[in-house]
């Protein structure tokens, strides 16, 4: 045998060169950083004790986290009622992934009932995933006044719409229908603009697409 060779044919200089080599500088920097953090925390702890308070380290909130706000509308839990949906056979392990039920886009979780779903929406996990801080901004008196004026106006408008006279009711209904048609037209145009050549989204129809007869 003229040549030194490893058991698996590796042509390395030594027996132990397969081991991981450590970047010493990187780890030294990490250690220094950790020491620095510990020092800072120790200082904060000491200051809190001097002020007669208990020091509690809190998890850091991301800089760009936005305030949590109240829901704008009621949770629509009934919009899936009466609809048929195809669910892939292997979809969803437990709550994970999309399957039949209430699906949360941000966290990729599916819940089987509205109570679990709403609990999830209020949970820390969901708030973090949607970039919210879980804290609500305090309202000032001016904001309260503004809100009240808005609600008052809204109620008055609703009252004005409530009429018993047949002529005005027909007129109100016609206006409402016109508004709805306008909204539909706007949506349709939007869709058309999005696609190339203004063809609009073509509807693809497949025979027996998942409808179980």
């Amino acid at each position, binding site marked *: 045998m003229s040549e030194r060779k490893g058991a698996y044919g590796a042509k390395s200089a030594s027996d132990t060169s397969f081991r991981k080599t450590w970047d010493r500088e990187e780890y030294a920097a990490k250690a220094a950083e950790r020491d620095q953090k510990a020092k800072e925390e120790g200082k904060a702890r000491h200051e809190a004790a001097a002020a007669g308070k208990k020091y509690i380290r809190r998890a850091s909130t991301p800089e760009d986290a936005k*305030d*949590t*706000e*109240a*829901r704008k509308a*009621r*949770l629509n839990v009934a919009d899936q009622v009466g609809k048929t949906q195809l669910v892939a056979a292997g979809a969803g392990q437990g709550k994970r992934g999309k399957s039949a039920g209430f699906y949360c886009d941000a966290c990729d979780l599916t819940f089987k009932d*509205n*109570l679990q779903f*709403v*609990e999830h*929406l*209020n949970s820390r996990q969901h*708030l973090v995933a949607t970039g919210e*801080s*879980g*804290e*609500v*901004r*305090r*309202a000032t*008196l001016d*904001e*309260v*006044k*503004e*809100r*009240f004026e808005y*609600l*008052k106006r809204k*109620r008055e408008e609703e009252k004005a719409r409530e009429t018993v006279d047949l002529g005005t009711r027909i007129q109100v209904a016609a206006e409402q229908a016109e508004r709805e048609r306008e909204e539909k037209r706007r949506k349709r145009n939007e869709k058309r603009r999005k696609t190339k050549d203004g063809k609009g989204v073509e509807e693809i129809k497949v025979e027996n697409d998942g409808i179980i007869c």
Partner: protein
Amino acid sequence: MAHQADAKRALDERGYQGVLIRGDNPLKLFEKPVRDRIVDSYYWKEQCFGLNAATLLDRAVELSFIGGTYGIAQKPTPFLCLAFKLLQITPDREIILYYLEHAGDEFKYLRALAAFYIRLAWEKDEEVYTTLEPYLADFRKLKRRTRESWTLTHMDEFIDDLLVKNRVCATTLPKINPRTFLEDEGKLEERVSPLGEELDELDRDDDDEGERSEGEVEELEVNGNGHQDSDSRRSAEDDEMNDAD
């Protein structure tokens, strides 16, 4: 300045840091079973999450009845849930007064809510009396949900309950000194009824009638409550029976 979106941290038994009312966590003004039922209720989770003093108005204007808990499961009413939310966020004094005075003119259930909060959370008895008593002249109807049914009540009745009773809407109200006591102490002026002189006249009329009719109808004695005495009613029945015989 911010507060939590829900009451989870405020209800943590391991320690509470925040505003104190009567030296304790304001949420503890509600009893433990009621507290638990509120936190478990769907209304609380869905509608009360992340409210502040301004957005709370959205929910408060939709209130259509007052009450404590209802049904066999003792579900908390939205009114109770919102009162709980108010205790959690403890808005500034002027905001509560705005609810009571201005916004209350338009939305009666909001006034009831603010009055309930004031009775629970304000610590000076004389202030509670002076702030709430003007609304004893508000006669608007209120729907009240009881354990199994609905009853009709009025704003003035509700305010009176708050000032006199010790249990309203599934909550034991904090102890308050009676009005007469505070008057004796010199902390409160004597209350002038909005009825004014009419009240005296009514009293005088009653006295006059009493004197005139004393000799004529003996059975119709009226007791202190203004109700006919049950004893006298029974004797009247006996008389009728005798007549029949």
